[in-house]
C-alpha cells in the first residue's frame, strides 16, 4: 500500500520497450508525448525506435491515440478497478472468475495475454490519465495501477507515471509537499498543516459549503465543479487571479487579471515526472504577476490586527 515506482521521461525514451497508456488520450491531450518520449525517438537502448516498442492503449472508447497503438483494448466504462485487480491476481497465477471478468469488456485470455506481455518486457511503463483517476473508484484506480507496476518488478523492470496536465499542477504538489508535508487537500486552520482529501479538497469543501471565502488561482472551478459547488462559490466572497476572465470570474466578487505564467511571467514548472524546468517569459505583459498580487495581499493582511491561533491549537 502506498508507494510509487516510476522514472523520469528520459528513462522511458532510452529504455522502454513496452508502453501502456491507460485512460488517457495522448494524441490529443499530450500531443508531443509519442514523439518526444515514448514511441518514435531512437533510444539509447531502443535504437530501432518505433519498431523496438509495443504500445498498448486501454480506454473506453477509440480515440485518435488508438491509431498509434499496437494493441487497443476497449473496456467498459467504470471497470478499470476490476481489470487492474484481475491483472494483479493473474500476475500471481491466481484463479479469477471468467464471467465476472467478461463484464469488463475483456476476456481472461486477453488479460492473461497482457500480463504475459508485461512480464516479457525488458522495461515496461504504464502511463495513466484522468480516464482512470476521475472514473468510479477515483484514487483507488490510480492506486491499482501503482500497485500493479510495483508488483511487476518481481519479474522485470516496470514503472508507471500519471499523465498530468492543467498548468503546473505537479509544481503545486511539489511545493506544498516540501512546505507542508502534503500534496493537496490541506487545512491550515489550526495553524499547522493537516491533510484529508474528501474533507479539505476543493470540490468537497465547495459542495458542502464548508468555506466562507475563496481565492482561486490558476483554476476555473466555476466551469468544472458540480452545481452545488458553483452556487456556493457564487454566494461567498470569491477572488479570482487569472490572465483571462473565466467562468469563475463571472461569479466572483473580485477578478484580478494577471500575467500568464510561462508566457509573460517567469518561474519554475514541474513536469509530470517531477523534473523542474525554468520558465523564461517570451513576452511582456501590462498585468502584474500572480506573485506580485499575492505578496501585496499578504502585506495588506499583515497590516491588520493579529488574530493568531490559541497556543493549544494542535490536536493532542
Amino acid at each position, binding site marked *: *500500500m*502506498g*508507494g*510509487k*515506482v*516510476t*522514472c*523520469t*521521461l*528520459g*528513462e522511458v*525514451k*532510452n*529504455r522502454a520497450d513496452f508502453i501502456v497508456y491507460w485512460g488517457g488520450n495522448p494524441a490529443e491531450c499530450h500531443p508531443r508525448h509519442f514523439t*518526444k*518520449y515514448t514511441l518514435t525517438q531512437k533510444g*539509447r*537502448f531502443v535504437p530501432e525506435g518505433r519498431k523496438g516498442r509495443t504500445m498498448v492503449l486501454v480506454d473506453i472508447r477509440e480515440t485518435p491515440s488508438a491509431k498509434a497503438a499496437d494493441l487497443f483494448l476497449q473496456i467498459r466504462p467504470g471497470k478499470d478497478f476490476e481489470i487492474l485487480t484481475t491483472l494483479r491476481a493473474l500476475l500471481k497465477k491466481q484463479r479469477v472468475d471468467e464471467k465476472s471478468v467478461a463484464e469488463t469488456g475483456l476476456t481472461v485470455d486477453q488479460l492473461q495475454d497482457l500480463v504475459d506481455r508485461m512480464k516479457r518486457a*525488458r*522495461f515496461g511503463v504504464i502511463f495513466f490519465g484522468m480516464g482512470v483517476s476521475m472514473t468510479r473508484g477515483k484514487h483507488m484506480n490510480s492506486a491499482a495501477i501503482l500497485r500493479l507496476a*510495483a508488483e511487476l*518488478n*518481481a519479474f*522485470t*523492470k516496470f*514503472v508507471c507515471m500519471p499523465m498530468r496536465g492543467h498548468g503546473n499542477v505537479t509544481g503545486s*504538489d*511539489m*511545493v506544498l*509537499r*516540501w*512546505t*507542508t*508535508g*502534503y*500534496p493537496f487537500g490541506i487545512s*491550515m486552520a489550526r*495553524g*499547522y*498543516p*493537516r*491533510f484529508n482529501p474528501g474533507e479539505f479538497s476543493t470540490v468537497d469543501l465547495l459542495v458542502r459549503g464548508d468555506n466562507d471565502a475563496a481565492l482561486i488561482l490558476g483554476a476555473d472551478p466555476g466551469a468544472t465543479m458540480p452545481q452545488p459547488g458553483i452556487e456556493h462559490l457564487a454566494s461567498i466572497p470569491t477572488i479570482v487571479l487569472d490572465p483571462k476572465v473565466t467562468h469563475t470570474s463571472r461569479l466572483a466578487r473580485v477578478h484580478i487579471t494577471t500575467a500568464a505564467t510561462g508566457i509573460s511571467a517567469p518561474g*519554475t514548472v*514541474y513536469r509530470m*515526472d*517531477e*523534473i*523542474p*524546468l*525554468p520558465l523564461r517569459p517570451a513576452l511582456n505583459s501590462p498585468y502584474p504577476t500572480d506573485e506580485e498580487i499575492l505578496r501585496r495581499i499578504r502585506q495588506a493582511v*499583515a497590516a491588520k490586527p*493579529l488574530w*493568531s*491561533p490559541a497556543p493549544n*491549537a*494542535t490536536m493532542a
Partner: protein
Amino acid sequence: MLRITGGKVHDPANGVLGVVQDICIADGRIVPQVEGGRSIDASGMVVFPGGVDVHTHVAGAAMNFARGITPENYRKASPFIHTPELRAGLGGITPTTFATGYLYAGMGWTTVNEAAVPILSARHTHEELHDIPILDKSSLVLMANNEIVLDLLEAGEVERAKHVVAWLIWAAKAYGVKAVNPGGIVAWKFGKNASKLSEPVDGYRRVTPAQIISSLAGIIDDLRLPHPLHLHCNNLGIPGNVSTTLETMKVLEGRRAHMAHLQFHAYGGNGWGTLRSEAATIAEYFNAHTNLTADAGAILFGDAMTVTADGPWEHVLHELTGHKWSNVDVENETGCGIVSYTYKERSLVNAVQWAVGLELLLLINDPWRIFLTTDHPNGGCFWRYPELIRLLRDADYRRECLKRLPPKAQKRIVLADLDRQYTVSEIAIITSAGPARALGLSQKGHLGVGADADIAIYDENPASGLMFEHPRYVIKGGVIVVEEGQIRAVTQGREFIVHPSFDEQIEAYLRPLFEKVYTISFDNYPVAIERLAQPDIRACRP
C-alpha cells in the same frame, strides 16, 4: 555586536579544550574584542562551534518523494505553528523545509551538507534549500552512475571526463561530488546491480565500479575541490559487505575520500541469520589510512525512513519487509529508492546495526576523521543526535542499553568490551570541527578570530542530565537565533558552491550528446545562479 562571557569554550581546532574565555562577535564573525552590544553570561555553560552535519538528506527530489508517501508519519509529527515570524511546518521523520531549519538550529547545528542531488533536479534542491531557514548549506551532486561520464571512462577518456564532471558541478551549482553504489544504479535501470568491484558494470564491457571510484577520486583531486569524493560504497546493507568496503578503501589508497555512513558497510556474516559486526576490521584499516574520513551513519531504535539513491538496495529492503516502496530512476544520472523502516531493539539484525555504528565511533581513534551522523533519515532522525552523543559519553548508559538487546546479538558484536567515553571536546570535534575541516569550510567549526559566528551554548550540567539536548543559546552569523528554547530570529543562510575550472569547449561536446539522451533542452539544464538564495562561491584548493 555580541559578547559571550564566562563560558567554557571548546574550540579544538584552535587547541582550546574547555577553557573559560570570552568570545566577541561583530558583523557576523568572531573578532578579538568588541565595544558595546549585548553580553551573554555563559557561566556554568559550555560554548561550542555550531554543529556541522556532513551527511544528511533534507532537500530535493528524493526527500520530497519520501514526504509524499507518508502522511501517517506527519500526523504523528511535532507541528510547527504559524506565527508572524515563523512558518508552519511539520517535524517527524522527514521534516518539511521550514521545520528542518528550526529543528537543526534548535539543536545547535548551523551548517548542513545535503548529500545527494541529481543534476537534473538540482533546481528543485536549490528551491528547497532556499526554504530552509537559518542554516548555511552545501550540496553534493550524484556522479557515479552518470552515463555520459561512464561512457567516457569506458572509452578511457579520463581527461575529458574531468571537464564534464567540472561542468556538471557548476551546472548544478553544487559544492562537491557524491558517488552512490558506483555502477549499481545504472544497472538497476534494467533491474540489476553491481556487487563486484572488479566486474564490468552491466551494459558496459570495460568500466568497473573500482574504476569509477578511482577515476572520480582522481578527478576531484585534480579539480582541487575543497571536499573529497564522498562515497556510498557498493553492497550497502548486505551481510558480509566488509570485504567490499575494504576493497573499496584499497582502491582509494593514496587519494582523499570520505566514506559515507560507514555503519551500513561494516557487516560480516553471509546472510541475515549470521549477520555480525566487522566494525573492528574496518576501524583497524581506517585507523592506519589517514587519507580517509568517514561519517558514522549510526542507527537509533525507532522509526526511520530509508531514502537513498541506491535503488536496488531499496527493492531488496521492500521484499524483506513488505513496507511501502517508492522508486524513481533519473534519466542518464542516478535513481532513488524509499522504504519506510523501523529499527527494533528485539531484532537481531537491528541490534547488530546499532552496535556497529557505536563501535566505529569508539574504535576509530581519531575524532578528526569520524563524524557523528545517522544518515538522516535512513538510520534515525537528525533531531535525535543528542541520544547518540549520550551513548558515546556514558559507557554505563551504553551497557544498560546493551542489556535490552537479544542475547544472541551479544555474540555478534564487541560493544560490551568498549569502555571509551568521548570527552566534551571530542564531541565538539565529531559534530563540528571535524566535519567543517573535511568539507573544507575553513570559516566553520571553530571559534578563532575570523570564523563565522555560529555558536551553540549548552548548560554544562543540566538537570535532565542530557547535556546536548537543549542549547541555552544558538547564534548564527552573529545573530541570536535561539534563546531558551524559542526561536528569536530567522535569518537566511548561504549556499556554498564551487566553480571548478573546465574547458569551455566541453559544452560543444556535451550539447549534441545531451539532446540525444535527455528529454529537456540543454539550455534548460544548468541552474542559473540567481535561483540560489545567497550563493557563496568557495575557492578550490590551491
